[in-house]
């Protein structure tokens, strides 16, 4: 029984971290209908920045988060303004290809700069855990879980209560109409992508703190997780990524207990497909976002 509780507890904190990875991806997809293939590469870029700050200047990863966020926001803003805006009106899959090319550039650039070795940000506390009965809860992932919750709530509030949030939402709903209202769509899109890149960077920093990362395989894995979770949770709802992350985290953790470890990926995919067949727009997503796409 304690194994069951341990698996569930670990699934929750893992789910929080996965939610954090997906929230930026879901924002870009929901608002701009852009599937950002380079989301994982942006996250790993953030991880490297935090890693350098830790190695060179001994900065704790949690303190490095603001620096990473600002750096990634700027990088994201420039990418959108200079590049992705050029193909926004093209058929949807063009943005996918553009970000795929971008992913290759960033990924190989990092590999040439930092070699492909695995890195981690070594902290004294991240891997420690405190026990409640037989269940161990790791500090690092728990902190990432709370961070994910905090960021998602902040994002939801920003979207619903601030002028910027409304501008982003409006541009997402109908770009033409939004521009008629005087919203500078190019700027808003760039800000949105900037925010998403910053969120990716923060997620990357957390991944670096609780686990290890490298420039070749981690980006692809994070992008796939973000893709699955955004769809599982459903688009158009700020809490979609968090819900999707938690469901996936718990499903994988409990699934790993019942079947051997190698079935974990199959379980994640089974959960995704069953959810989509029953609720084509995701657990708590809005139907409008599911169907508005064509090649």
């Amino acid at each position, binding site marked *: 029984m304690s194994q069951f509780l341990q698996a569930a507890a670990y699934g929750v904190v893992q789910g929080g971290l996965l939610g954090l990875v997906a929230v930026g991806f879901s924002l870009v*997809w929901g608002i701009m209908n852009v*599937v950002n293939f380079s989301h994982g590469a942006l996250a790993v870029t953030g991880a490297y920045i935090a890693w350098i700050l830790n190695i060179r200047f001994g900065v704790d990863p949690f303190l490095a988060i603001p620096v990473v966020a600002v750096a990634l926001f700027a990088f994201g803003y420039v990418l959108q303004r200079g*590049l992705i*805006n*050029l*193909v*926004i*009106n*093209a*058929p*949807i*899959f*063009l943005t*996918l*290809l*553009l970000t*795929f*090319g*971008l*992913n*290759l*550039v960033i*990924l*190989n*650039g990092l590999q*040439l700069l930092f070699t492909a070795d695995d890195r981690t940000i070594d902290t004294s506390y991240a891997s420690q855990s405190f026990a409640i009965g037989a269940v161990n809860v790791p500090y690092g992932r728990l902190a990432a879980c709370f961070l994910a919750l905090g960021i998602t709530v902040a994002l939801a509030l920003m979207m619903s209560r601030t002028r910027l949030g409304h501008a982003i939402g409006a541009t997402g709903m109908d*770009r033409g109409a939004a521009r008629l209202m005087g919203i500078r*769509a*190019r700027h808003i*899109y760039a800000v949105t992508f900037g925010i998403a890149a910053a969120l990716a960077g923060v997620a990357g920093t957390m991944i670096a703190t609780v686990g290890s990362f490298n420039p070749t395989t981690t980006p692809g894995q994070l992008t*796939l997780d973000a*893709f*699955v979770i955004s*769809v599982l949770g459903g688009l158009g709802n700020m809490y979609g990524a968090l819900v999707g992350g938690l469901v996936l985290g718990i499903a994988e953790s409990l699934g790993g207990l019942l079947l*051997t470890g*190698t*079935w974990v*990926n*199959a379980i*994640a*995919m*089974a959960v*995704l*497909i069953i959810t*989509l*067949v029953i609720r*084509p*727009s*995701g657990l708590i997503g809005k139907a409008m976002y*599911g*169907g*508005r*796409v*064509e*090649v």
Partner: protein
Amino acid sequence: MTQKPSAGPVAEVLQGRSRSTQGMFGDWIRSRTPANSWPVVAGFAVFAAMLGLQQLIVPGTQRLLTSVFLFVALAQAWNIIGGYTGYASFGQVAFFGLGAYTVAVLMNNYHVSFWVALPVAVVVGVLFAVVIGVPLLRLRGHYFAIATLGAAEGAREVVNNMTSVTGGGGGITIPTFGSEAPTPYFGKPGFYLAFLVLAAVSVAVAALIARSRFGYAMVAVHEDEDAAGAVGINTTVVKVIAFAVSAAIVACAGAFYAFQQIEFYPTDVFDASFTVLMVIMVVIGGSGSVVGPLAGAVGLELLSQFLRVNLGSFNQLIFGAIIVLVVVFFPQGVVIYLRDAWRTRQFSILDNVRRYRL
């Protein structure tokens, strides 16, 4: 008040003169209007040239061109479901892997000849396409893409865990040496021919479908499913058949690929980058046309091989940069850009960019 239908011009039009009533296949042959038969001639010319080329190729390129033919077939197959029908599947590699493993398991465990295993592999691919197609083809856009990606990852994990049959993570080997080889190994020239024929068949199938009644139904489904339903197109059947035809070609390619590789692991033949490459080749070439995916496949495969051979550790970075540039400058696809530019005599790339920017 109601009148018997008069024999006015309208009635005559609407009744329609009695027309030949062969089955659907009948009109596949007569469907191409004579006006544009030059693509057929061009197709045979290229096919013949490739055959001739085999004898006098520069050393080292036979295997390179074989992989170009493989990607031409895969790109055309993806084009049928992603380009024409507008359902961009991210799971085509599932059929590739299933085709490969069907052949490998039959030849290794049951000592079946390749020529018997090949049709079985195609059937397995088609069956899997129908089984996952019926539920998943109700989804649209990115949701369909992610669901099919999930199906492909799922298929790989199932094969990965059926260790007793497929050897799972330990990989599988097709016996090709000495007596216990059920079918003698084709060798490099053999596979050159096999993949050339496969590429030619897939281009022919795509071309035939494009102009046929079924082809128009696929485009109608792509443009607007409600309108397609209103004119009597069974959208579900059209989508599932398009998915199955695409799966058949991909499974067939997987079968030949398995026999060529002899030894492989699940991660090799269920590698998601196959699907991504198929998508890139079709979309950059120009989806929804026959020449687009062809040009995309040949161009990109030669480019990536050229970069890999000459640029060493920078090759993937440059490849990514080139994809970005091509997407920015030719958002509608290179072939369609060239076709429109040729028709309108405006070759300016900058206007092309301006047309799509925000």
